[in-house]
């Protein structure tokens, strides 16, 4: 893709979509004594990538696929439309996104995490509407709490002209960097060591993104559903704390 700068812009933790306020479950895991140092942070991040990272990336990729459905022919000149391709046009996109929304709800067991995903989607949408006013955000399901973050991300990346695998990469990468940065802030870890840890996870991140982009060819009900029940339980407990530094 000829848009490396836009890929970097959307993957940047400084993109104003509220990432700084979320620890990806790390604040709760630290409080539970499960993450205390670099080694346990690495294990946490690897687990997060394999669960929330994979699912989020797959749904972002699937939303991207829905967004570019009408241009499938030109984007993939090598093949003709398959029966599983989402229908093109606004109505088709709305239907595809509504299905993805329901499927992602079904994969997010903790009510607190469903709310967080919609909250982050709302924040991303706020930024996206200003930056890409022509994107097809009107096709997102109109839910009171907002649309799920991966769905908004998929539309945003499509508007920015990014590819499906780039979209999945941004999603997977974001699940790692958000929690890693929270680790630096919560545990006072050496930031160089934490970056080194991310370098070590880079191949896994790229692999997850590739898997997610491939999975998005499947119909919504077949998308990945990896989960970590303890993270769900932690999220529910975290939501009841009187004082939280992070929103999740």
């Amino acid at each position: 893709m000829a848009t490396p700068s836009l890929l970097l812009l959307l993957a940047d933790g400084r993109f104003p979509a509220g990432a700084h306020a979320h620890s990806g479950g790390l604040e709760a895991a630290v409080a539970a004594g499960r993450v205390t140092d670099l080694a346990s942070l690495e294990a946490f991040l690897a687990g997060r990538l394999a669960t929330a990272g994979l699912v989020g990336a797959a749904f972002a990729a699937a939303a991207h696929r829905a967004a570019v459905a009408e241009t499938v022919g030109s984007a993939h000149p090598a093949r003709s439309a398959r029966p599983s391709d989402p229908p093109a046009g606004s109505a088709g996109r709305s239907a595809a996104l509504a299905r993805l929304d329901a499927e992602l709800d079904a994969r997010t067991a903790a009510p607190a995490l469903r709310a967080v995903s919609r909250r982050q989607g709302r924040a991303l949408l706020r930024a996206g509407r200003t930056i890409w006013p022509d994107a097809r955000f009107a096709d997102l399901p109109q839910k009171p709490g907002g649309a799920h973050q991966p769905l908004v991300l998929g539309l945003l990346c499509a508007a920015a002209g990014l590819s499906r695998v780039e979209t999945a990469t941004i999603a997977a990468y974001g699940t790692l960097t958000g929690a890693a940065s929270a680790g630096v802030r919560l545990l006072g870890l050496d930031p160089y060591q934490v970056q080194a840890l991310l370098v070590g996870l880079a191949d896994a991140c790229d692999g997850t993104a590739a898997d997610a982009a491939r999975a998005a060819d499947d119909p919504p009900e077949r998308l990945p559903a990896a989960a970590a029940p303890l993270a769900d339980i932690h999220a529910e407990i975290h939501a009841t704390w009187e004082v939280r530094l992070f929103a999740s």
Partner: protein
Amino acid sequence: MRPDTVVPSAVPAVEPITPPPATPPHDETVPHTHPEPGVDPHPPLARAGRALRVGIGGPVGSGKTALVAALCRAFADELRLGVVTNDIYTTEDADFLRRAGVLDPARIRAVETGCCPHTAIRDDIGANLDAVDELAEAVGPLDLVLVESGGDNLTATFSRGLVDRQIFVVDVAGGDKVPRKGGPGVTAADLLVINKTDLAPMVGADLAVMDRDARARRGDLPTLFLSIVGDPTATSVADWIRHELAHHAALHPLDVPVGPA
């Protein structure tokens, strides 16, 4: 002394600040950042198309929450008020505002800032804007939303995308050198409040020095000296906000709503 800078002329020993009299019909000693002679800032206040958003920032413990409480008291029967706090917010804080009888907890929203209080009010303001929207959704249209920043250092400042005006609160107990240090809050806030003047004799702070330095840093921007202990409705700050509300209403008339609450 500039008319818009009120410094207690002497440092009294006990209960230094006499509560000012009821607001006169048009008190031009009240500072305002955008003087518009044609606008009468006093009640009845014109309703605006959207709430005026006022950021209240400043170092830890300078009296931001105390000022929010004072303003809630001052505007209780006058304005439809909401508060967004980026403070590390405990139920005790909410209780404090409720017990003081100053604000219904439904009118307060807390924003988690992920240990980055300045980011949430400056670089990445979405969560705060969401909180402002949610307030209006929950309690209806508002006239004034106060956004309290987390206690930070002198470099914190609000984005213009989040607030229409910002007040920076420092206190005399932080040392009378603080205005001289500058920083965007001290130099550029629409209003600088130097709080806890009642403590000046205890901590050996020279208010004249603070006034001189603030003036040097701020040019024509207003500075107010305050003791919330002595003036629990922060009269001078409330008057400043009334002025700003009048200008805001002129800019955003009722029939032309601009953006979300």
